[in-house]
């Protein structure tokens, strides 16, 4: 490079993450993401209602492969996300600082996010032990109840904690074997899309996680009303939208998770988010030929 001429950077185009790829919004729309000082930071894709529907289709496909992966494999993949995130810690610290965090707070947030993923990597093969049971039924049957993933979960990521908040809502959904359509917090698009790049390089099956950026008020109602979405995490729902979203969710009897009390993503995560997106399946099987196996009451 010749002296005196400073190299012009190659800034990233922030796009959506759908079905394992990074498409622009089908609408062609973008919005300006601003840094802490209010200056131009980047253009992000302004996802449309059609993008939500495309993401749900991708998530249903992703759910098939992700929910069928072995628990050990799922744990390794979630751990791999932690590894990849750790490898991009300096990028993410810079992004958090650009968004307004102090450097120390940004480092703490990235560390905590890596730790949260590691924590959930260890959950995948213990859900049955904690949420399941063998059932001592008073009849000649072996009966057990085991947790299974609910399906496609629509996640509204919280504001105010661009990386740790996003990781804290996504990790339990993934660890339990669900697929997610995440609507990132609108001001945090750069962090969310960079985290999507981490996911894309972590062996997460295409579609198991989809990340949309844009207006929560525009996208969330579509997600809440979508017939192929099984559950909603309303952690990041604006207070004035929450009741409407819950009403929309009732049309197909969606499971709706609304956190109680004040949000503190630095606290121990507990079981609530894991429990929220698990179904319990009870299986009965007759025990042996000496019993009245298979017979009914008639």
């Amino acid at each position: 490079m010749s002296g005196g001429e400073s190299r012009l950077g190659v800034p990233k185009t922030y796009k959506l993450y759908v079905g394992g790829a990074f498409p622009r919004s089908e609408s062609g729309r973008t919005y300006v993401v601003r840094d802490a000082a209010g200056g131009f930071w980047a253009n992000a894709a302004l996802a449309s209602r059609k993008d939500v529907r495309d993401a749900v289709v991708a998530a249903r496909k992703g759910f098939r492969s992700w929910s069928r992966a072995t628990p050990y494999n799922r744990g390794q993949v979630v751990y791999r996300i932690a590894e990849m995130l750790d490898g991009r810690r300096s990028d993410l610290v810079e992004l958090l600082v650009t968004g307004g965090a102090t450097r120390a707070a940004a480092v703490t947030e990235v560390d905590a996010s890596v730790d949260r993923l590691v924590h959930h990597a260890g959950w995948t093969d213990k859900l049955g032990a904690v949420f399941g049971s063998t059932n001592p039924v008073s009849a000649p049957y072996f009966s057990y109840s085991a947790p299974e993933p609910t399906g496609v979960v629509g996640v509204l990521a919280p504001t105010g904690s661009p990386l740790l908040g996003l990781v804290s809502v996504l990790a339990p959904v993934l660890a339990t074997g669900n697929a997610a359509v995440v609507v990132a917090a609108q001001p945090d698009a750069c962090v969310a899309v960079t985290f999507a790049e981490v996911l894309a390089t972590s062996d997460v099956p295409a579609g198991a996680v989809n990340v949309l950026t844009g207006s929560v008020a525009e996208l969330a109602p579509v997600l809440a009303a979508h017939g192929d979405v099984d559950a909603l995490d309303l952690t990041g729902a604006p207070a004035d939208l929450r009741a409407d979203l819950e009403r929309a969710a009732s049309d197909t009897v969606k499971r709706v998770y609304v956190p109680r009390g004040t949000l503190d993503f630095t606290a121990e995560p507990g079981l609530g988010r894991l429990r929220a997106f698990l179904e319990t399946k009870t299986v009965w099987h007759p025990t042996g030929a000496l019993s009245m196996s298979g017979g009914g009451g008639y």
Partner: protein
Amino acid sequence: MTAPTTTPTTALSDGWTYAPAPESAAVAAVKDRYLPFVDGTFVEGHGDDAETFNPGTAEVLATVSQSTSADVDTAVAAARRAYEDVWSPMSGAERGRYLFRIARGLAERARELAVLECLDNGKPIRETRDFDVPTAAQHFFYHAGWADKLGHLGLGPSPRSLGVAAQVIPWNFPLLMAAWKIAPALAAGNTVVIKPAETTPLSVLVLAEVMADAGLPPGVVNVVTGAGDVGAALVNHPGVDKVAFTGSTAVGRGIQHSLAGTGRRVTLELGGKGANIVFDDAALDQAVEGIVTGIFFNAGQVCCAGSRLLVQEPVAEELLAKLEARAQTLRVGDPLDKNTDVGAINSPRQKAKIDELVAAGSGEGAHVWRSSCPVPERGWYVSPTILTDVAGSSRVVREEIFGPVLTVETFRTPDEAVAKANNTPYGLSAGVWTEKGSRAMAMAGALRAGVIWDNTFNRFDPAAAFGGFKESGFGREGGPSGMAAYLEEQS
């Protein structure tokens, strides 16, 4: 698939006639008039009296004083006082003692309750005597034992009760559904306002007597009476912390809709359209018994009924012939008769719904097989009905019929069986019939339903969680996960 026509005769019926063996209606000690149970006493409701009928005869059984929304206010206030002053501060061991006493009290009055349930609901005495009442007592006994062990449920060392639980239950298992709802709520330390269905309030009001006799403190359980408007007033009452509903998906959806944004906890146990899947290696005679249990137990008025039979093609004709022959032997009739297999339909409204759907199936091209067992002239009865030549898109395959009506489809491969079984917005139950253990387990994994029965059907136990996937609702009843529906995790 062509429906083989059979001439259903059995060795048993040839040359034999059934002698009726009726249980005595007097055992139920039915009173002329029943009152709601609020704050420990039976009090007049402020609504107009309503009649409850004996579905077996279509005659009036008793008059029931009806609650109003003002009575719901009174009941919720009583439950709140009992929660704050008595029940929530009480030790778990002490709460458990009350529940054990209720279980014993139910067992002591089992015969009376079995007859009463039979008269008010229309289901056969054999079912109320052998299933509904003993299982209700077992639910109280099981949950009594949890009351002092809440710290072992995986909800932290001392999980917190929620407060006042509003519970609305259906007419198909009135006493048993009350036990499913009340026992875990009380064991967890909540108090209850419960509303039985307007067509079947009596056994729950006798349960209230049992609870009063057990010394349960006033207000801990309150029973209000009435129809959907009273239920709506109850579940939407601002003084309620938890809502538990069992009933149709349409009403459950409405409850979820009306509670949106309130932060109130909800569990819903809703409708179903369970697949009962028979593979070609199944023990067919056993499968026939299981299919019969699956769809004709309680005349098919069961949310988890195996209402869609899926048969592998090579055995379809043989199985259907066996099934029709077996269904023909079922005695349809007087619920009080100990011989009766299939009793009455609970209400004329429900019978009309079943008849309408069967007619729709016929209109859509289904072949209709019906048992020729004579039914009583009075009362509301539907004979066992089997619909073949049905399309997966037809109403009888899509919609919950809630009656003794089975649809039959065929499949070739396990994948096709799974696809057909899961092709419904419901996800409550499914059955699998095969002698191959690995296939049974693989099917159990692939079916999106809350309860899977391998080589059996319609088995229930308080130790085993019950509840739905998808639009069959959320939350569980029974087992540790059933307790979780009435507790808040405390770390």
